[in-house]
């Protein structure tokens, strides 16, 4: 498209009109979707990556518990060996002394972190305990994800009677003293179990934590759904003849997915913590199974002579929960549109 310059003046100038390709630097950066942006930010965030790696290592260690117990320690998590002995740099030592004091860490293959009162290998119990804690945390989180989202969706979308029932219910559970409710339920169910589920199955603590933390996700999602419900694209969907269920799951759910993803790590971290609380108070994982909470609790008696008994499972618990929290933070910052642009000058 030539430009015929007006009367005389400078020589006729042929200029391509499209401004954008005039000079390469002038172009705007190619637009990228929120997910790629988030991923790009995440890759940049070294702290998050470090803790992500740490989390993976911790989880792997716990998953490899059977390998460690079979090939290295040679004993199961519950094998008592009270009257046995173990060789510590040459000399045979009682695993449990005559007066009942268990041996401290030998830093060798057998009884790496020492024994507990029943002569069980603490390192093996630590890994199996980790598996239990992570399993309960994961199952509880799954329960919360499903129940929480469902309750949030139903209460937010249907409002009216449904909301009238669900909201005060969430309010009740939310204001109920979590520990008391959890411990009371735990103690009660550990005795009788529910229906087919036996008293000491791991699903009881997981179920309790799940129920207790539903409002943690339910309330924010309900808020989001209430807000989204008013937006035009929902009316548009309704006009197209979509039923309420389809609207909820195909329209609203994707929009609250960022909230869910942001809350996922928070809930996982808190579920693991609450399991530790319950087990610490004797209402979570039941004997002879172990979890980090029970190990810390058992170790308190010997904190004076062998602090590692309590503090190592404590450290594992804190590192795991910390990693989940940091990764959660990283994910939230990456996804959060108002992310503080961290400038490296």
């Amino acid at each position, binding site marked *: 498209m030539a430009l015929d310059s007006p009367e005389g003046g400078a020589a006729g100038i042929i200029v391509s009109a499209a401004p954008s390709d005039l000079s390469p630097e002038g172009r705007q950066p190619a637009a990228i979707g929120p997910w790629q942006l988030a991923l790009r930010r995440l890759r940049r965030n070294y702290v998050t990556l470090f803790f992500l790696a740490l989390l993976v290592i911790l989880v792997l260690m716990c998953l490899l518990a059977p390998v460690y117990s079979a090939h290295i320690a040679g004993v199961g998590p*519950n*094998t*008592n060996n*009270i*009257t046995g002995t173990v060789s510590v740099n040459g000399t045979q030592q009682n695993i*449990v*002394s*005559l*007066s*009942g*004091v268990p041996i401290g860490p030998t830093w060798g293959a057998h009884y790496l972190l020492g024994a507990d*009162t*029943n*002569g069980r290998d603490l390192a093996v119990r630590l890994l199996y305990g980790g598996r239990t804690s992570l399993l309960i945390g994961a199952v509880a989180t799954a329960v919360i994800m499903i129940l929480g989202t469902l309750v949030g969706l139903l209460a937010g979308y249907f409002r009216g009677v449904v909301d009238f029932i669900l909201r005060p219910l969430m309010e009740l559970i939310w204001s109920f003293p979590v520990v008391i409710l959890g411990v009371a339920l735990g*103690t009660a169910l*550990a*005795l009788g179990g529910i229906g087919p589920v*036996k*008293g*000491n199955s791991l699903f009881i603590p997981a179920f309790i934590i799940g129920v207790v933390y539903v409002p943690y996700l339910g309330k924010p999602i309900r808020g989001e759904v209430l807000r989204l419900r008013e937006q035009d694209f929902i009316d548009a969907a309704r006009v197209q003849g979509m039923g309420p269920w389809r609207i909820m799951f195909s329209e609203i759910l994707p929009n609250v997915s960022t909230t869910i993803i942001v809350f996922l790590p928070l809930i996982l971290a808190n579920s693991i913590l609450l399991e530790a609380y319950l087990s*610490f*108070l*004797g209402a979570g994982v*039941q*004997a*002879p199974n172990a979890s980090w909470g029970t190990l810390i*609790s058992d170790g*308190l*008696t*010997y*904190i*004076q*002579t062998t602090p590692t008994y309590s503090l190592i499972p404590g450290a594992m618990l804190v590192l795991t929960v910390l990693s989940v929290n940091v990764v959660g933070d990283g994910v939230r910052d990456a996804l959060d549109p108002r992310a503080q642009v961290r400038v490296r000058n």
Partner: protein
Amino acid sequence: MKRYVRPLGVSLLCGAVVTVAACSSSTTSSGSSPASSSGSSSGSSSSAQAGGTITIDSGTPPLSADQALDFTTQGNELYSVVNTPLLTFQRGVQGVAGAKIIPGLAKALPTVSNGGKTYTFFLRPGLHYSNGTAIKASDETYALERDIKIPWQAASFVSAYIAGGTAYAGGKAKTISGITTDDATGKIVVNLAAPFAPIEDIFALAGTAPVPPSTPMKNQANTGTVGDGPYMWSSITPNQKYTLVQNPKFDVPGIPKGHAATIVYQVNANVTANAEQVLQNQADVFDPGDTIPASLLQQVQTTAKDRYAAIPTNSSYYWWFNVNQKPFNNIYAREAVLAALDDRALSRLDSGFLQPDCHLIPPGIAGGSTGATCPYHNANAAPNMTEAKTLMQKSGMIGQPVTVYGEERTPRRQWLDYYTSVLNSIGFKATEKVVNSSVYFTTIGAPSLKPQTGFGDWVQDFPNPWDFMQLFAGNAGSSLNYGYVNDAHYNTTLNTLFQQQPDQVVSQWTALDQYAVSKGYYAAYGHEEFPKFYSDRLNFTTGVMSTEYQTDLTSLELK
């Protein structure tokens, strides 16, 4: 009376946490500052100081200061010096042989008539309670009625054996018909439903001590009751602090008056801290109802060996089997467990405070025997796993699921873990069920539960083999005989033996015990020792740790 130690707070409490090496200040304020005794070296008790304050640190409080409700060893230590019953066990007798029964408020031992069904007591004349009111014969009736109404944790001793007891308990009668009293002569006549020799022991329990009629028919947890004993209650903060002071009006001959002016019984659930306190002479007595934590034991045995000793007691620990249900309805299955059980391991779990033995009657009581005569292996030696495996083959019960019940308190939970692993090692599919200590026995006692196997213990009420063997009598009911054992030979032998004085039928009691072991009705594994652990302020030799009273408060005196 089982050693009913109730943990204050949840399971973790009993080893709550951490001792303080150099204990800066006493945890809960312990009254007068515990200055260590001036100069006088331990042992030499030149001039025993009269008066002064003695503090007892206990990990668990009694259920109540009211002797008509409480039936714990902790409670008995305290109110046995406040409420003297008609009869009483002689004070100052150390060791398992146990004390003889001597007259308390009664002038003399009761005269027995009507074929052992009637016991007649006469009150000593002119006795007064610590608040000055005179003691009348009818007070005894009121006291026994109180036992049933509140109820006393051992109320069945009164309601089951004294005539009219059950009627009164059921509310059908206004008073207990079996008891008639005459205040003028101080005469008390007790008629039994059936002859029952141990009734004399029951009238030596503080729970049956007379109380003034003004005492309310409700648990007096905050004030305790008034009695005629060497001491009386000064102040009580339930579950925290109990204080006794000497009773100036104490006038019962044959019972020592006690030396200390004030006795403070302090509750701190952190048993480790209590042991540390006594070690540092911040407190005077470590309550024998608690176990010295393993982590501290060596230090105690070395630095305080002249003021510490493990005193054997008449107590027994056993695993019971439900003989009406698989797998333990099969004798071979039961015997296999006896063969595989390593009593030494169980002893280590109890910091070595346990004397291995497979018999129920403790050695200190007539009819008791040692671990040598145990079937399959000596209780002090390694278990006989090969025999256990063959017995399991014969029983055909390999792979059977078993639920094991136990208490959550240390060392009981550790015993439970060990016992479950033994059951698994010989072929069962065993899982554990840990129950809170204070509701354990009432839980497994519930008829609806029908548990397969679990933990049991018993501490002597009085030095009579019947007190132990009654646990497996056919008519003992599910709240004691958890395994529903109902052996004809066992029942008839028990009924004949308990009529007679124990020291005449020693060999028959031993034979009955051995018979029950051979039948595998219980897998007993030992008798426990209680710690006698004082500060160096107290005279260790004159202090008495008795099977009836544990710490005999009247025997405590400052150096």
